[in-house]
């Protein structure tokens, strides 16, 4: 059955090619980093826990030495503009094939669970879509065989260390959980609520969800903590709040926090590299006014509609 094996093999092969390309051009830190990621994708399950830990340390060392910025593209702006005129809207076909095939594949793989593990349907569909669209683009534009790797590694180098940060932070979350971080934070926040009144309880619940999410980078990690500390005992039991409303609006308060934290790196830090932004927190800055206003609106909905 196809599960994570197909996407991980594809990603491993791609990172291996990036590593070879980089090492051949004496771009050592980049080559080492993408090479270690290739090892992780292709053989991570056979390395053992300590082996994987050492692999991560290798990546950290390479990143601390500093990944090199992407090399200058072979095709300059004028060549690309000419090519854009030549191919016109055909250029959109492979780009739009990715969402279309991901969508169709996700439904197909869920409907036929014998072929693909339903839990991994989306990731498998995305990988199939990326490969199929690459084939379509190669057929349409007849690029040299090295172009996908050369152009891919250029984008990868532009993302740089930020590409690995989300996975590192997910791993850090596991250690936070082991150290009982959530319980400590919820104890501190719970102590802020005076007496039995509703307004401070709602404020600390929604504020705690946002703050805990900012600290941990993930509303999923914050939810069980705040629900157990304040949502269940105070909002649902003591004040008869509607359970579905308290849960759903609490999670959304956490999502507002996700928009404000570099810890949610795949949303807030990765695009900084992908879009060549010079300010590391440019995306968070662009999101902050919306995040704060939506948090306030969400708080009002919780206070006004969730309680009898």
């Amino acid at each position, binding site marked *: 059955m196809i599960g994570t094996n197909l996407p991980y093999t594809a990603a491993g092969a791609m990172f291996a090619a990036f590593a070879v390309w980089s090492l051949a051009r004496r771009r050592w830190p980049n080559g080492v980093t993408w090479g270690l990621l290739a090892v992780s994708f292709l053989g991570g399950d056979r390395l053992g826990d300590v082996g994987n830990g050492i692999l991560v340390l290798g990546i950290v060392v390479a990143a601390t030495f500093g990944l090199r910025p992407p090399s200058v593209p072979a095709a300059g702006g004028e060549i690309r*503009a000419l090519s854009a005129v030549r191919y016109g809207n055909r250029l959109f076909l492979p780009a739009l094939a990715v969402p279309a095939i991901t969508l169709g594949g996700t439904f197909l793989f869920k409907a036929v669970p014998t072929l693909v593990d339903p839990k991994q349907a989306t990731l498998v569909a995305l990988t199939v879509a990326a490969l199929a669209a690459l084939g379509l683009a190669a057929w349409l534009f007849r690029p040299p065989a090295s172009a996908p790797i050369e152009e891919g590694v250029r984008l990868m180098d532009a993302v740089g260390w930020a590409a690995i940060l989300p996975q590192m932070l997910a791993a*850090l979350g596991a250690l936070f959980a082991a150290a009982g971080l959530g319980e400590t934070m919820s104890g501190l926040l719970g102590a802020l609520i005076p007496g039995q009144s509703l307004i401070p309880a709602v404020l600390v619940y929604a504020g705690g969800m946002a703050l805990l999410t900012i600290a941990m980078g993930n509303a999923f990690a914050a939810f069980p903590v705040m629900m157990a500390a304040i949502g269940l005992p105070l909002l649902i039991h003591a004040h008869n709040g509607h359970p579905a409303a308290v849960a759903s609006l609490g999670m959304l308060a956490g*999502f507002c926090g996700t928009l404000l934290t570099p810890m949610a790196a795949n949303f807030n830090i990765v695009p900084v590299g992908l879009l060549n932004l010079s300010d590391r927190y440019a995306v968070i800055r662009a999101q902050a*006014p919306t995040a704060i206003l939506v948090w306030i609106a969400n708080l009002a909905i919780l206070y006004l509609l969730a309680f009898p």
Partner: protein
Amino acid sequence: MIALAGIAVILIGFLLRLQPLLVVAVAAAVTGLAAGMAPVAILAAFGKAFNANRYVTAVYVVLPLIGLLEREGLQERARGLVAGMRGLSLGRLLTGYMLLRQLSAGLGLTSIAGHPQTVRPLVAPMAEAAADPEGTMPEPERETVRALAAATDNIGLFFGEDVFIAIGSILLMKGFLEQFGIIIEPLALSIWAIPTAICAFLIHGGRLMLIDRKRRAR
């Protein structure tokens, strides 16, 4: 309290803009030591969790395709398409994209768009062209426009996905409340996400309209 030492490392490291991967590794070590774990146990726990979370990094398999299309002129074509549409302002373009992103995420289709797949090759160049059809805008302002495109993708995704009944966060909430004897339907959770989804659309859409108005005033 000592469990918070890791958070303090993260906070200081990110504020001082030190190398983030190093900051995370140090935070993990500090957190583990504060919890009384042996160094090798910390290394093993971190390595195990890193390996278990590889799917986060697997999405980059789209990069060779995106890079190839950009080599053939995809960004230039996306810009040309938008620059040809008079009346398509930055605010209208991004509001339209946000609506599409919210609706598709609300149907559970969270992975059909994203920063590598759609924002970098399509939405960001289109936003630049809508903001500046003549191509005379200085680079710092272009960066602000691209950051706004990325922000709009995130906002559309976050305040759309919770309307879908089978998304991870809904299943987490349902499962967690069940442990305490509270049985709720996923549909009830997703319906309660709709008012905030509408507020998010109006708030961010309103901000985008304001940005349009400010740009016109100049």
